[in-house]
């Protein structure tokens, strides 16, 4: 017989932070494989590096803050942060970039605010935005999809590029990199090229960016699994996706020359990972049901606005951080009506 709780309720609920985080990690696997399929093994190197840095920073911070290391390091939250950030960083980004981003996320965005449960901002997005504004060049040079690449990067060369900046055969970063479809869309619309022509280029696939469309689909599949397992709830993703859809439909109807189709926006860039894995972060999101809908809609609207009018190709990270700031206000105004409250 173990030691049991001495205060009610005495029944054990199945819910556990660790289990939830494990489910989140599990749900990301298909999309990560899709990324490996489209961009090569560099993605895995990046993730491994991020995981190592995250867990080490977490352990050090827990020690410094004199918190028990084991229950917190095994809660899985640092791992989730690491992977979310790793897949947002270009696969061949130099090792120090990933390291800085992850360390900043864990040390500053998480632990200096009090650790798990206390961070007002999504740590992965704080790390990402820091990198984006400090190293815009490194952060926007993506790999082209393998099938389009003249120099597909194998595991060894990926390793050398990440840690040395060039391969032993002298191949450097700029020779293998390319723009993402969202980038391309934005730049070329800037050059007055009509979206319908842009999507005919080989950078684009059936309904979105080549490769990206499937990565987004797999993130969505993982997300639906999480909803099914009740790890996340449907309010945030639905509100965010619906808002993006509505906004892009409006533009598609009234100003079709200014941007891609609604479908293109739904399966591009960070839309799906944002909707199902980032904006659903409970700690930095709203806790009430109505609040979650407001939060999700806000993230969707800001994402779209930044994509179209902002200076960056994708806006998920900024949108999430901006909405994080609004959470206390949202929570306050969306309290549910208690039982028996006068109508």
């Amino acid at each position: 017989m173990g030691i049991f709780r001495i205060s009610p309720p005495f029944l054990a609920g199945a819910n556990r932070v660790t289990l939830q985080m494990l489910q989140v990690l599990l749900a990301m696997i298909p999309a990560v494989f899709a990324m490996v399929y489209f961009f090569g093994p560099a993605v895995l190197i990046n993730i491994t590096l991020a995981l190592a840095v995250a867990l080490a920073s977490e352990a050090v911070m827990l020690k410094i803050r004199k918190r028990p290391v084991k229950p917190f390091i095994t809660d899985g939250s640092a791992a989730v942060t690491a992977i979310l950030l790793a897949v947002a960083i270009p696969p061949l980004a130099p090792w120090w970039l990933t390291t800085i981003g992850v360390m900043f996320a864990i040390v500053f965005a998480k632990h200096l605010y009090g650790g798990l449960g206390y961070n007002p901002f999504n740590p992965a997005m704080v790390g990402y935005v820091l990198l984006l504004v400090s190293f815009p060049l490194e952060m926007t040079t993506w790999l082209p999809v393998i099938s389009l690449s003249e120099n597909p990067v194998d595991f060894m060369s990926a390793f050398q590029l990440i840690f040395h900046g060039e391969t032993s055969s002298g191949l450097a970063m700029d020779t293998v990199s390319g723009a993402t479809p969202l980038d391309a869309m934005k730049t070329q619309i800037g050059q007055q090229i009509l979206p319908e022509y842009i999507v005919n280029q080989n950078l684009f696939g059936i309904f979105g960016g080549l490769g990206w469309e499937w990565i987004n689909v797999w993130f969505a599949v993982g997300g639906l699994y999480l909803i099914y397992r009740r790890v996340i709830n449907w309010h945030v993703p639905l509100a965010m996706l619906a808002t993006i859809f509505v906004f892009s439909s409006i533009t598609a109807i009234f100003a079709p020359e200014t941007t891609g189709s609604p479908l293109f926006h739904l399966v591009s860039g960070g839309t799906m990972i944002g909707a199902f894995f980032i904006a659903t972060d409970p700690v930095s999101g709203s806790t009430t049901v109505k609040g979650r809908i407001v939060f999700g809609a806000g993230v969707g609207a800001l994402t779209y606005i930044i994509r179209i009018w902002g200076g960056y190709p994708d806006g998920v990270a900024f949108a999430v951080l901006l909405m994080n700031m609004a959470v206390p206000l949202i929570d306050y105004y969306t309290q549910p009506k208690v039982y028996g409250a006068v109508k």
Partner: protein
Amino acid sequence: MSKPLGSFPGGLKLNGHKKRSTQSPIRKTPLAKTLILPLQQHIGAAAVPIVEVGDKVLKGQRIARAEGHVSVCLHAPSSGTIKAIDEQAIPHPSGLNAPCITIETDGEDQWLERQPVKNFRDMSAHEIRQIIRDAGIVGLGGAGFPSFIKLNPGVHHDVETLLLNGAECEPYITCDDMLLRERAEGILDGVEIMQHALRARNVILAIEDNKPEGVSAMELALAARPQLQNTSIMVIPTRYPTGGEKQLIQVVTGKQVPSNGLPIDIGIVSHNMGTAYAVGRAINHGEPLISRIVTVTGTDVTHAGNFETLFGTPISELLAFAETKRQPDEPFILGGPMMGFNLSGDNLPVTKTANCILVGVDDAAPASEPLPCIRCGDCATACPASLLPQQLYWHSRAKDFDQTRDYNLFDCIECGCCDYVCPSKIPLVSYFRFAKTEIMNQEREHQKSDLARERFETRLARLEREKQEKEERQRQRKAALAASKAKKEKQEQAAAEADTTATENKEN
């Protein structure tokens, strides 16, 4: 049969584990040598002993009278001798002792002459309530509120619906279930009386759908009783905490009891099935409340079941009768696994509110260090009162009690749903109980200081009044003097000056 009209938010689907204790019929617990009867087994003022040590008492004899308005009487559960009237350990989470009457039973179990009511329909509601109060009947669902009060709707209210709560939503507990199966007749006796006393327009017997045997027993009994009018059985979905009074009302009627209000405000009065049975016994058989059915169950109980047990029986004897693997002084749970509390101590007696004794829970929650709140909101989704438990937790922890009130702490029914679902395993209910106790203590302090201030202010006011009265008297005296002076002045002006000086010297 009628259909539920509503449902409540949140709640849980829990594994009931009820079969374990419904396999054998209700058994009688053997008479114990000593019976320990706490004077307060109900909400309200403790009863006051009317016997003395050494007195011989008969079964059913009143041994303590109700004190004040919210209180009920207490009776000897069996015949014997009063052995002590002193402080004893009572089954309360505080672990404190409280005044009890201890009876040494003589084994005769000899009744005091019972005086059944021939026809309760000839009696007024007031007379019925008096008998119920004198019979010591309290809500047997667990809260222990004196039942006669809930049979008095007051002059301003009509009772639309008398609701009989047979939800029994907590896992493991089956005492109402067994009562329905075996004594549906007796329950309806009480229901008839209650309907008469309340002049309730209709009666709904609400039973969760996990008790089909109970439902059919009740259907049979109801069919055989055409005089019970406008009475129907409502089978409601099994969900925790449907048995909460407010939740049940919402399920049955689709209406909500106003916050800070009572069910009677929306024309509803609810009683537990076991209470109805006790009312029937008291009126029709002249038997006061001296025993109840207690579920004894759990993984460590060999002969789990329901036991008709005299109040005052030491829980250890009841457990011995049911046979458990429990070692002496090992803790057990009194009540259900969601809202009960942990007790240890072998001499604790069975009281009026003891519905279940649980030894060994199947999916027992391990003691664990809680992680921080990750604001997942699962607790809010589970809360049947639509509260925000994470906010309540946050403010309770910070002892920010004004904020906990703003977040409606006092609407929390302590059902434990939030606690159960919390992924960080935070003991939320304990925090809420703590905050409630603190606030109530503060309030008591407040009242005390208010009283002191009031006294002080009354005193000041009195002093002020006295001063004013004195001044008034002086003024009058002066005026009188002045008047007489003026008279005198007219008569003898020469003496005027001396007179005035004298008056002034008198002043004090």
